[in-house]
C-alpha cells in the first residue's frame, strides 16, 4: 500500500537531499578557495557579492554558457556518459544516511533519512566504488594520453584503497553490531566510535581522501604531471560535472565519516530537540571538510607506486590487525566485564604506533641504502 502523503514526503526529502548536496557543492568551492587563500597569505574570491558569496553563481553561469567541446577522436557516447556516471553515485551515496531521528512536521512523524535500509554499509561500499567507472571511462574515451594515464591511475588508486576502506567498515560493524546506519549512530549514544577505535577512524579518514581523489592522493588529475589527467579533454558543463562529483563526494564521505565514527546526528539536547540533528551533522561535516582543505594546502602529492605500497603494505595489514583487536576486545568485554572494552583503544593505539615505527624504519633503511 503506497499512500500519497508518504510518496510526497519522500519526494520532498529526496529533493531536499539532492539540492542540499548541490548547494553544498557550490559553497564548498567557495569555502575551499577562501580557506586556501587565507592559508596562503592571499585574499581569495571576494568580488562577486558580499565576501565573494556569489562566486559559485557566477561560475555556474559561466560554465552553462561555455561551448561543449567533444574531441574528434573521442568515443562520443561514452565521453558524454562518463561525467553522468561519476555524478550519480556521488549523489546516491547520500540516500541511506540518517540526518536525525524523527521530527514532527505538519503533524506527521518524519524520519530524517531518505531510505534507512538494513544493509546501509554494504550499500555505501558498493556505490562508492562504482564512481571509479566514470573516471576510467572518461580517461579512456577521451583518446588522449594524459587522460588515459589518469584513468589508469584512478583504477590503481581504487584497488589500493578499497580494501582498507571495506575493512574499516567491518570495524564499525563489529562495534555497532549492525549494518544499518541509524542503528550505528544509536550505538554511539554512550561513546563515539572514534574514542573506541581511534586508529580505525584515522585509517578511514586517510582512505576517504584517496576515495575522493583529494590531495595528497589526487593522482588521477595530477596537474603537474598529467596536465589535468582524466578530465583533460572536458570543458564546460561536462567538466563542471566532474568537479561537482568530486565535491559532492567530499561532502558525502564526510557525512559518512561523521555517521560512522563521530556520532552522526548525536550531540547535546538531541533527545529534547530532534531537529538539532541536521545542525550537528552540518557542524561536524564542516569541521572534517576544513581538515580536507587544510591537508590540501599543506601536503605535496605522493607518487603513485608509493601510494600502492601505502595501501597494501601499511594500511591493509594495519586494518586487518585492528579487526582482530576489536573482535577480541568485544569478546573479552562480553565474557569478563564491560571495562575490558578499553583494551580496544589501548591496543589499537599501540598497533598504530608500531606500524608508524615500522614504516619509519623501513623508509630510513631504504634511504640509507641510497647513500
Amino acid at each position, binding site marked *: 500500500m503506497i499512500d500519497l502523503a508518504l510518496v510526497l514526503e519522500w519526494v520532498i526529502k529526496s529533493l531536499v537531499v539532492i539540492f542540499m548536496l548541490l548547494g553544498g557543492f557550490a559553497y564548498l568551492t567557495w569555502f575551499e578557495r577562501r580557506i586556501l587563500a587565507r592559508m596562503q597569505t592571499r585574499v581569495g574570491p571576494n568580488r562577486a557579492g558580499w565576501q565573494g558569496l556569489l562566486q559559485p553563481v557566477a561560475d555556474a553561469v559561466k560554465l552553462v554558457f561555455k561551448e561543449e567541446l567533444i574531441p574528434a577522436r573521442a568515443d562520443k557516447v561514452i565521453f558524454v556518459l562518463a561525467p553522468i556516471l561519476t555524478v550519480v553515485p556521488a549523489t*546516491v551515496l547520500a540516500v541511506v544516511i540518517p540526518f536525525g531521528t524523527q521530527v514532527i512536521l505538519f503533524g506527521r512523524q518524519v524520519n530524517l533519512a531518505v531510505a534507512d535500509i538494513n544493509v546501509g554499509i554494504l550499500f555505501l561500499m558498493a556505490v562508492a566504488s562504482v564512481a571509479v567507472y566514470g573516471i576510467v571511462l572518461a580517461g579512456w574515451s577521451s583518446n588522449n594520453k594524459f587522460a588515459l594515464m589518469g584513468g589508469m591511475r584512478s583504477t590503481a588508486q581504487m584497488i589500493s584503497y578499497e580494501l582498507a576502506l571495506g575493512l574499516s567498515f567491518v570495524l564499525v560493524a563489529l562495534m555497532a553490531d549492525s549494518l544499518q546506519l541509524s542503528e550505528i549512530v544509536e550505538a554511539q549514544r554512550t561513546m563515539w566510535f572514534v574514542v573506541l577505535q581511534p586508529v580505525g577512524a584515522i585509517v578511514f579518514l586517510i582512505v576517504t581522501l584517496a576515495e575522493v581523489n583529494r590531495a595528497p592522493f589526487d593522482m588521477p588529475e595530477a596537474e603537474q604531471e598529467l596536465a589535468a589527467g582524466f578530465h583533460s579533454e572536458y570543458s564546460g558543463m561536462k567538466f563542471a560535472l566532474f568537479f561537482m562529483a568530486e565535491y559532492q563526494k567530499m561532502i558525502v564521505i564526510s557525512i559518512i565519516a561523521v555517521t560512522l565514527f563521530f556520532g552522526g546526528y548525536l550531540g547535546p539536547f538531541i533527545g529534547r530537540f530532534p531537529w538539532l540533528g541536521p545542525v550537528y551533522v552540518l557542524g561536524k561535516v564542516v569541521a572534517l571538510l576544513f581538515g580536507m582543505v587544510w591537508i590540501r594546502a599543506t601536503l605535496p602529492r605522493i607518487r603513485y607506486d608509493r601510494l600502492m605500497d601505502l595501501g597494501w603494505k601499511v594500511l591493509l595489514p594495519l586494518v586487518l590487525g585492528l579487526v582482530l583487536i576489536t573482535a577480541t576486545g568485544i569478546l573479552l568485554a562480553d565474557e569478563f566485564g564491560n571495562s575490558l572494552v578499553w583494551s580496544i583503544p589501548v591496543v589499537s593505539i599501540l598497533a598504530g604506533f608500531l606500524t608508524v615505527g615500522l614504516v619509519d624504519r623501513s623508509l630510513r633503511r631504504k634511504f640509507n641504502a641510497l647513500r
Partner: protein
Amino acid sequence: MPNPWVFIGLFIIIAAIIPIGAIVVALILGPKKPNPIKQSTYECGLETVGDSLVQFKAQYYVFALAFLIFDVEAVFLFPWAIAMNKMPLYVALEGVIFIVILVAGLVYTWRKGALEWV
C-alpha cells in the same frame, strides 16, 4: 511501509536527471562553433603522435588480481562481524581463524614479490 529499495531506485533516477538536465541545458545555451583545431586532441599544443588507445602497460595488474581475492573475502567478514557476539564462542573463533588465513595470504603475496610494480 513500502520497500525502501523502491525509494532508492527512484532516488537514482532523480539523481541522474540532474546531470543529464545540466548537460542538455548547456547544450541549448552554449555556443556551438566546432572546428578541427578545437576538436583536436590536447597534447600540450602539438599534434599527437601514435595511437593513444594502446596495450597500455598497467604496472599494477598483479595488485588487481590480489585485490579481487581480498575484496571478496572482506565481504565475508560483514555477516560475521554482526553476528559474532550473538553466536557461541567458536563462531567468533572461526572468524578469527579466517582473518588469520587472510593475513597469511597477504604475507604470502608479499613474500612472493607480487606487491611490487612490474
